[in-house]
């Protein structure tokens, strides 16, 4: 497909490493404990983590090779996430 998936959360590299090992993920996981990128993307969900930590709200962005957003999903209900099919459809439109 030629699309590089990148997962971003406030988890530490160690926590993400454990998750990747457990779930068998081989793509890039980035750690944003200080919410630098999460804040820049205006995705901070204040006080939702354990002990009232700030975390990211779920969101997906598909960027083309120039870094321009071509598709995005900001869910209105955190149980509802983008489906693989939605992302594949968006990725097909990228060529």
């Amino acid at each position, binding site marked *: 497909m030629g699309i590089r998936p990148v997962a971003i959360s406030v988890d530490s590299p160690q926590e993400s490493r454990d998750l990747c090992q457990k779930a068998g993920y081989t793509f890039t996981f980035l750690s944003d404990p200080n919410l630098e990128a999460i804040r820049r993307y205006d995705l901070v969900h204040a006080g939702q983590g354990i002990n009232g930590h700030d975390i990211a709200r779920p969101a997906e962005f598909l*960027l083309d090779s120039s*870094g321009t957003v071509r598709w995005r999903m900001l869910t209105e209900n*955190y149980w509802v996430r983008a489906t693989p099919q939605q992302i594949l459809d968006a990725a097909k439109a*990228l060529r």
Partner: protein
Amino acid sequence: MKIQRFNWQIWTGFVLSIFAFLSYPLVFVNWPVTRNFPWANLLLFAIAALLLFIGVRRAFAPDRRRISKIVSSVLATLSVLVLGMFIFVAFVASKWLPASTGAPQVGQKAPDFTLVDTNDKSVSLSELLSSPIKSVPPASTGGPRAPKGVLLIFYRGYW
């Protein structure tokens, strides 16, 4: 005094409504088809409600003792509370999300960032956009190439 038969409907209905609640975060959340809309859980609640209804009717039959009327009322009330809690968790509290009006729009350039990956290595978005994907093999296509795009997945994490 005649022996009263165990009112299994009321107890099954009660246990089932607790299961209907817990099975959403523990089981049905794993598949988008049962997660995006919790129809499986609502179906379980519907079955529980039917059992509770039958159970309460049984308990309020003239030949039942007063204790069974009390127990069935309490269990039915608790079940309704469990359903209310489920509706709150699945449909109300889950929508309390930030507006994110400043999030990059379609057509806008995604802001660059530099973060640490699982190998404790710093990675920037511009590198992710330009560095070749190694898992794309065939030499016939000219070997590893830069990705056609990058999918950024922000998630809540496990903290």
